[in-house]
């Protein structure tokens, strides 16, 4: 089990601010200041949304392909199988997020139990 402190160091909080808070909030504040004249359906925003979706998809893949912490203890086949099983149930239940998440989790836990 990892040891992690409840407070942590100030350096990590400074990194959070520089790499997380500022690059994220800048877009909300731009929206607050310059909103009004922007067409939500403009071609540039379609491209931006597609890139943003693909970056998030890449992060989802990264967590499954190069798993952090305890997830690394789960064999590859079970991690990929859990995502596939969840996706199948998600599509079969007319896009129920819950059914998909539960199916993926059940697949992974059942596989872990079965493999011992």
């Amino acid at each position, binding site marked *: 089990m*990892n040891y*992690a402190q*409840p*407070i*942590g160091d100030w350096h990590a909080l400074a*990194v*959070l601010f*520089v*790499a*997380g*808070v*500022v*690059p*994220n*909030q*800048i*877009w*909300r*504040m*731009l*929206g*607050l200041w310059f909103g*009004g004249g*922007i067409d*939500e359906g403009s*071609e540039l*925003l379609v491209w931006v*949304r*597609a*890139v*943003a*979706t*693909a*970056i*998030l*998809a*890449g*992060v*989802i*893949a990264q*967590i*499954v392909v*190069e798993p*952090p*912490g*305890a*997830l690394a203890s*789960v064999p590859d086949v079970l991690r990929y199988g859990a*995502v596939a099983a*969840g*996706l199948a149930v*998600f599509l079969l239940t007319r*896009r129920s*997020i*819950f059914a*998909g*998440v539960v199916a*993926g*989790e059940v697949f992974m836990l059942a596989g*872990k139990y079965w493999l011992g």
Partner: protein
Amino acid sequence: MLAPFTSLAKAPVALPPLDSSQWNSPWLAFGWGLRSITQTILTIVLFVTYLGIGALAHDTHFSLLWALCSTLFVWAGPAQIILITTLGSGATIIQSAIAVTVSAIRLFPMVVSVLPLMRTPTTKRRELFFAAHLTAVTLWVECHRFLPLVPRERRIAFVHGLGFGLVSVCLTANMVGYFLAANLTQTLGAAILLLTPLSFLFSTARNSREVADVVALVLGVLLYPLAAKMNSGVDILVSGVAAGTIAYGVHWWREVRA
């Protein structure tokens, strides 16, 4: 047995009529906003997602305070996951900041489209500051659903209540996830970490209205392992820009053809 779930998803929004005295003060409106978190299935999706973020922060060696500050000040699930994952896998601050800011660009059109719903002719820009900060995909979706049922002059207070409720739910989930990851067996810890990719994959898939969204999602997942082989340090950006641009190309080609 399924009745509570289906009624939760389909129940008409339970708010007082527009001319009711229940809207007479901003505090009452704040209370109605706060209460509205019980009216949406997305609250549970958020709880599960932030449970996963808490566990991810723990297993990537961030402190609990760090995780809570990221929820409070970033307040965007995808950006938080990207930040934790990239920093945790050794990216530099600049690389993480670029990945976060690209993921956050979508907040700009959301803020631009949601603030006019709350504005009155006398509204000052600073009064909308917290509403802008609270805007993320969940609040954006819920504003379009709830705000037409709220008197215009009470909408900012209502959104503050709704946002306060959602942030509180997520901070609680972060704490629960963090402590579960620290204290559970390895298998259950892994199950909580798996919540993050599953809930993001399915909620993004559910929000995909156009073909370009679906292509971006599928290609983004498939191209990442290829990009990771390059070990460039900006793998996520390489696969994201490539997959997103191809998805945009598909959108463009369909528009031209149509």
